[in-house]
C-alpha cells in the first residue's frame, strides 16, 4: 500500500521517462504487430491497429499501471482458426463479440478466471501456441511457403524445409533464407550481448532497421534491385489514408452458426487468460509496487477489442514481453502505453512505404524466436524438476491443443490434473466432499505483531485456490502473513506456485509471507508432490566445484577471506537497491567474505522481465554493509546512456569545485543537499583517481559492480581492492 501522492504533479514529472519508454516499446510493437497479424493470416496492419486502439483505450480506461496492450502471441492460434473458418470479415465480428464477452467478464469480476486453471495446463497450452507459431512461420523464415492441414504437420515438415534450403537454386530464395537465419541469430544473441549502445534499440527493431538498410544499400549504392524474392517481401501495408478509407465492415452473417460462437469463446478465453497472466506477472515487476485492478482492465480490454474489431484490428490483450520492456525502460504509468500507440500511428503515417522493404523471413524470425521461448526445452526441464505428473499434464494439454484445438486442450489439461490428483490422494471423496466448503480461515492475530494467520483445511488445489486467493488479496503487502497447511491434506503445484508469487511480492513490499505446516506432508510421503522442490537450487555447486570456483577459493585463502560456493539464503539485502527495483534476484552464490563479514564479493543471478521476455543475467558484485547512515545515491560513468536518461527526466547532481568529477561521473539521488555534503573532497578525489565502477547506496549499504556479467579472477581482485579502499575512505 502506498500513500496518496499528488497525482498530477507526479504524472508530469514522470512523463518524459514514460514517453521514452513508450517509444522503445513501439519499436518492438511495430514488427511484432505486423508479424503476429500475418501469422494469424490477417492483413499485417491489423496487428498495428490492435496495438494503437489497445494502447489508447486501455491506457485511458484500464486499471493496471505499467502494462502494454496490443496483439498477443497467444491469440495467433485461435485467430488463425477464426479467420480460416469464418473469413476475415466474419472473424472481425467474432472479435467484436469476444470484446463484449470480455466486458461482461469484467463486470462479473471474473479477474480470477485464470486462477481456475492448473498452471501446468496453462504452460502446456502456451507451449502449444508457441509450437503453432514456430511451426508455421519456420518455413517462411527459410523461404519455403507451405500450405498444410494441421499445425502438427507444419512441425513435422521442419526438417524437410531445413534440408531443402541447401537445394535452392533460385538466388532470390537463398537471400531470403539467409536474411531469415541472420534475423533469428540477432534474436537469439541479442540478450547475450550486454552492450548498452547495442541494447538501446530492441532486437526486433534492429532486424527492421538492418533489413530496410539492406534494401536501401542495394537501391542507392549498388543501384541494383533487391536480391530477395519479391514474394518474400512484406506487402499490403496500406498508407494512413488508405487505412481510414478502407475500414472493413464486420460480417455478422455467421452470427447464428456454431463455429462462430466456438471462435468467440476461444478468443475470449485465451484473451482473458493471456491478459490476466500478463497483468499478474507485470505487477511483480512494477518498481512502485502497485496492484492492478484486473476487472477494470478486463472491461477496458473488452472495449478496446470491440473498437479494434470495428476498425479492422485483432483482439487487444495485455502482453508480457512488451510490458517488461516498458518497465525496464522506466515506464511508470499508463501514459507509456498511450505514447506507444501514438508512436505507432506516427510510424505508419510517416514510414508505411518503408515497411514494404522488410523481408518476410526477417519478420517471421522474430515470431519463430517468440514461439521457441514459449515452448523452450528449459521450460520442460523446469516442469520436469517439479514433478513427473506435471509433465504429464503439460504434454496432455500440449498435444490435445496441437491435434484438436485450444479449448479442448485446456479442458483435457484440467481433467488430467484432476485425475492425477485423485490418483495421488487415492480417491475422489476428499475433493467431492469438501469442494463447496469454505476451507480458508483468516484472522489477524490480536497478540504479538498482529500477523495475519491463514489456515487452510481439507485440500487446496486449482479447484478452490480462488478462496485462498480472495483472502490473501485482502492483506496489504507490507504486513506479515502466515499460511498454515497443517489441517490441509493436499496442496497442489498450482497453489504452491501462486503462493511463491505472493511470497515474492510480500518480501519486495516490506512484508513477510510464510508457509507452514507442510513438513508433515513430506514425512507422510503419501503424496510425493514436488512441494518443496519448487525452486530447484544450484545443487551441483556443493559437490563439484568448477575451475573458477577453485580459483575463487585460492583468492579467498590468499586475501584471508572466507569462501562459500553454495547459494546464500537471504537475498533481500539487494532488494532495496535502485538497480534491482525492476529486476528479480534469483540466487547469490560464490560468496567471498571479508574477515569482518560486513564486506562481501559475490555472483548474483538475476532476471529482467518475466515469462518469455525473461533474460537471466549473472553479475559479480561487491556489497558493503555500512555502520553509519549515508544518503541514497547512484554513481556511474557519464556517457551516452546517461545523457539520454537525463533527457528522460533524471538529474545529474553537480558537486561544487569538482567540475572534472561532475563531467566524468553521473550522480543521481533524491536528497541533493545531503549527497553534496556526503561527497567530500577526499571521496571525490578517490573516485577521480580510480577506475570506473557503478556505485550505488541504499542508505545503509553500498553496492559496487563493473559490468553486467560475471567477473574474472583479475577483475574480482580489482573490485575487491576498490571496494575495501572505498570503505576505508567513507569510514574516515
Amino acid at each position, binding site marked *: *500500500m*502506498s500513500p496518496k501522492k499528488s497525482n498530477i504533479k507526479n504524472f508530469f514529472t514522470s512523463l518524459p521517462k514514460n514517453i521514452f519508454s513508450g517509444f522503445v516499446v513501439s519499436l518492438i510493437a511495430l514488427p511484432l504487430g505486423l508479424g503476429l497479424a500475418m501469422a494469424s493470416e490477417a492483413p499485417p496492419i491489423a496487428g498495428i491497429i490492435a496495438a494503437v486502439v489497445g494502447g489508447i483505450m486501455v491506457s485511458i480506461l484500464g*486499471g493496471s499501471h505499467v502494462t502494454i496492450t496490443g496483439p498477443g502471441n497467444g491469440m495467433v492460434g485461435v485467430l488463425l482458426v477464426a479467420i480460416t473458418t469464418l473469413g476475415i470479415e466474419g472473424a472481425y465480428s467474432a472479435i467484436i463479440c469476444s470484446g463484449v464477452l470480455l466486458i461482461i467478464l469484467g463486470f462479473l*469480476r471474473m*479477474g480470477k478466471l485464470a486462477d481456475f486453471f492448473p498452471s501446468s495446463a496453462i504452460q502446456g497450452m502456451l507451449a502449444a501456441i508457441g509450437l503453432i507459431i514456430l511451426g508455421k512461420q519456420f518455413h517462411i523464415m527459410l523461404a519455403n511457403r507451405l500450405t498444410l492441414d494441421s499445425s502438427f504437420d507444419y512441425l513435422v515438415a521442419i526438417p524437410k524445409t531445413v534440408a531443402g534450403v541447401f537445394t535452392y537454386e533460385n538466388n532470390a530464395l537463398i537471400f531470403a533464407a539467409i536474411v531469415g537465419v541472420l534475423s533469428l541469430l540477432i534474436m537469439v544473441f541479442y540478450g547475450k550481448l550486454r552492450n548498452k549502445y547495442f541494447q538501446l534499440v530492441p532486437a526486433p527493431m534492429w532486424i527492421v532497421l538492418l533489413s530496410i538498410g539492406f534494401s536501401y544499400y542495394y537501391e542507392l549504392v549498388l543501384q541494383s534491385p533487391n536480391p530477395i524474392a519479391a514474394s518474400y517481401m512484406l506487402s499490403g501495408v496500406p498508407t494512413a489514408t488508405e487505412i481510414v478509407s478502407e475500414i472493413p465492415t464486420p460480417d455478422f452473417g455467421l452470427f447464428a452458426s456454431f463455429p462462430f460462437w466456438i471462435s468467440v469463446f476461444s478468443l475470449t478465453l485465451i484473451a482473458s487468460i493471456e491478459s490476466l497472466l500478463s497483468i499478474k506477472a507485470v505487477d511483480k515487476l512494477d518498481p512502485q509496487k*502497485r*496492484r*492492478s*485492478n*484486473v*476487472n*477494470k482492465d478486463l472491461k477496458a480490454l473488452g472495449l478496446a477489442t470491440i473498437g479494434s474489431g470495428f476498425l479492422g484490428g485483432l483482439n487487444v490483450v495485455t502482453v508480457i514481453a512488451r510490458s517488461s520492456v516498458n518497465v525496464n525502460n522506466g515506464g511508470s504509468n499508463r501514459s507509456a502505453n498511450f505514447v506507444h500507440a501514438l508512436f505507432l500511428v506516427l510510424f505508419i503515417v510517416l514510414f508505411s512505404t518503408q515497411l514494404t522493404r522488410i523481408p518476410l523471413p526477417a519478420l517471421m524470425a522474430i515470431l519463430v524466436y517468440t514461439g521457441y521461448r514459449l515452448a523452450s526445452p528449459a521450460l520442460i526441464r523446469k516442469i520436469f524438476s517439479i514433478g513427473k505428473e506435471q509433465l504429464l499434464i503439460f504434454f496432455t494439454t500440449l498435444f490435445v491443443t496441437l491435434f484438436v484445438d485450444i479449448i479442448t486442450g485446456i479442458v483435457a489439461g484440467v481433467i488430467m490434473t484432476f485425475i492425477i490428483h485423485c490418483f495421488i490422494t487415492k480417491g475422489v*471423496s476428499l475433493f467431492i*466432499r469438501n469442494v463447496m*466448503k*469454505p*476451507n*480458508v*480461515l*483468516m*484472522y*489477524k492475530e*490480536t497478540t504479538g505483531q498482529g500477523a495475519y*494467520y491463514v*489456515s487452510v*483445511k481439507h485440500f487446496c488445489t486449482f479447484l478452490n485456490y480462488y478462496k485462498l486467493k480472495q*483472502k490473501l*488479496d*485482502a492483506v*496489504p503487502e507490507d504486513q506479515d502473513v502466515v499460511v*498454515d497447511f497443517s*489441517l490441509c491434506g493436499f496442496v497442489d503445484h498450482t497453489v504452491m506456485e501462486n503462493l511463491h508469487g505472493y511470497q515474492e511480492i510480500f518480501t519486495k513490499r516490506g512484508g513477510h509471507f510464510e508457509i507452514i505446516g507442510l513438513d508433515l506432508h513430506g514425512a507422510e510421503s503419501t503424496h510425493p508432490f514436488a512441494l518443496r522442490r519448487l525452486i530447484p537450487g544450484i545443487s551441483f555447486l556443493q559437490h563439484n566445484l568448477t575451475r573458477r570456483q577453485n580459483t575463487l577459493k585460492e583468492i579467498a585463502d590468499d586475501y584471508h577471506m572466507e569462501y562459500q560456493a553454495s547459494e546464500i539464503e537471504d537475498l533481500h539485502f539487494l532488494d532495496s537497491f535502485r538497480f534491482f527495483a525492476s529486476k528479480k534476484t534469483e540466487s547469490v552464490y560464490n560468496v567471498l567474505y571479508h574477515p569482518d563479514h560486513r564486506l562481501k564479493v559475490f555472483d548474483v543471478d538475476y532476471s529482467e522481465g518475466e515469462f518469455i521476455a525473461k533474460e537471466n543475467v549473472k553479475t559479480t558484485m561487491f556489497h558493503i554493509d555500512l555502520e553509519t547512515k549515508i544518503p541514497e545515491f547512484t554513481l556511474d560513468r557519464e556517457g551516452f546512456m546517461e545523457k539520454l536518461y537525463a533527457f528522460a527526466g533524471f538529474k545529474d547532481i553537480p558537486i561544487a569545485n569538482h567540475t572534472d568529477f561532475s563531467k566524468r561521473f553521473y550522480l543521481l539521488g533524491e536528497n541533493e543537499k545531503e549527497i553534496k555534503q556526503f561527497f567530500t573532497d577526499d571521496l571525490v578525489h578517490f573516485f577521480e583517481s580510480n577506475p570506473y565502477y557503478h556505485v550505488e547506496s541504499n542508505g545503509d549499504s553500498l553496492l559496487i559492480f563493473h559490468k553486467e556479467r560475471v567477473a574474472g579472477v583479475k577483475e574480482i581482485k580489482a573490485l575487491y581492492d576498490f571496494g575495501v579502499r572505498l570503505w576505508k575512505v567513507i569510514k574516515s
Partner: protein
Amino acid sequence: MSFTHFHTIGIGVTFSPNLTANIFEASRIALRFNARLILIHVGEVSDEKKETFVQTISPFAAKGLHYEIVFKPGKPVDSIVQVVSEKKIDLLIVGALKRENFLKYYMGSIARKITRKAPCSVLLLINPSVEKIPCKHIVVNGLEQEKTEHTIQEAFYVAHALESEKITIVEEISQQEIAAIEDDKSLRKATLEKEKLRRREVIRVNNIVSAIPDAHKENIVIASQPIFGKRGYSIGHFAQVARADLLIMNAPQKTKFVDRLFPHDLEHILTELPTDVLIIQ
C-alpha cells in the same frame, strides 16, 4: 443476567463400545454442575440392562451423584426429545461420531436431528473418554444475534463450573460487509472498513462481557478475536486451529429443508465437529 442453570442433565445411552466413556463423561459433568443425571435408553425395560447401567455409574453414585434411568421404547430421536420435555432436562449430552458419514449427512444423523428438535441445550461429545480430560479453553461465538448475549453468559457459567482457564469470544465478520478488493485504493478502503468493523464488534462484545457477574469471570482469561470468513463455518475452523476443548454456539435460528441441502452455519460444524460442541438453547 439471564443464564439457565443446568439442574437436570440427560444423556442418551445405548450398548455401544462407547457406553462407559459416555456415562463417565456425563456423570463428571453432572457432578460439576451439581445436577441430576438422567440416563435415557431407547428400548424396552429389562433387569439385565438396568444392572449394567447401575454398575457403570456406581463409582459416581458413591461420590453423591443423583441419577435416574429412563427406558422409552420408540423411535430414537422422538423418544429422547419426549423424555427431555417430560423430565425438564436442561442439558442433553450426545456422543457423536467425529466426522459424520457423507451419506448420513443427507439421511440425517441422530445427533443432528436431536440438535434440531430438542428444546434444551445440547452438548455433542466427539471424544468421550473414561479418563478425565480437563476443559481448558472454550471458544464461544459472538455473532451479532439476539441469542448471543445469553450464549456468552451461559459460556461463562459453564467455564466457571468446568474450571476452564480461557474463553475466547469470536466475532465473525461476514465478507459481505466489506467492499470488494480490486486494487490499492479499494484495499486501503477495505482495510480501514475492517478496522472499523473490528472495533465495533469488540465494543459490542465487551458490553456483553461487562454485564456478567465477576464471580463467573474469576480465574478466566478473556480474549476476543474477530475473524473474517464464512459465518458459522469459520468459527469451527478457528476452534480447531486454536485447539479449543469446547465450542459454544447459539442454537440455530430456524432450519428449513433447503438448509439441509445447502449446508451453512451450524450445519458445517455439525458435519465436521472440530471439537466438543455445546449448543445453547
